[in-house]
């Protein structure tokens, strides 16, 4: 199906383990984003990518690593998970171009709920 999909939807892990959350979009959107959602904080941007091989930090990047070797995939890795990274993670994409054309509308996946014990 066309759209943006995240996997896994639910994940429980232990402190210190590496975890990778996957995000795949079928629209060939240039921009992709990772947000985390926590009570009282709303959505906070972790990393974003303007195109393949171009990534940049958002508001809360510490403890996370991203890569974008292909336009359609944007995995998020927690190299050594901590309890403070327990959250719901949302991937999003946008048809924005690097020149600024487009409306900025984001299309979201359904989220990945991560619990770090």
């Amino acid at each position: 199906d066309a759209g943006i999909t995240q996997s896994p939807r639910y994940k429980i892990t232990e402190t210190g383990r590496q975890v990778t959350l996957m995000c795949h979009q079928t629209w060939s959107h240039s921009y992709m984003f990772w947000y985390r959602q926590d009570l009282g904080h709303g959505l906070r941007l972790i990393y974003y990518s303007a195109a393949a091989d171009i990534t940049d930090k958002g508001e809360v990047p510490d403890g996370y690593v991203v890569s974008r070797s292909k336009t359609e995939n944007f995995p998020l890795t927690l190299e050594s998970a901590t309890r403070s990274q327990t959250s719901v993670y949302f991937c999003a994409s946008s048809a924005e171009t690097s020149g600024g054309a487009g409306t900025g509308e984001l299309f979201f996946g359904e989220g990945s709920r991560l619990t770090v014990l």
Partner: protein
Amino acid sequence: AQSVTQLDSQVPVFEEAPVELRCNYSSSVSVYLFWYVQYPNQGLQLLLKYLSGSTLVKGINGFEAEFNKSQTSFHLRKPSVHISDTAEYFCAVRRAVLGGSQGNLIFGKGTKLSVKP
């Protein structure tokens, strides 16, 4: 930099009553404004957006919002709510003219709308 303040974290309302969810933003440049809705255990979906032109914007599900530049506000309204409108609503802002790779939205912390029978 841009910022968004949603003035109410929770809004309880009875079915068929009108509702207004308040949003104020801060920016030194022209912005695009958005309202997103999140139903339980789902990702965010776009309700409506303001890019330019008419300051009254109509969206899906009978919602509308008015852009007020002098008040730096973008309040969301619905004249008669339904039980199915129970959800969390997020206001978001993005600068209208991008430079480099600045495609990300800045979100408010959200307002939980609870519609009671």
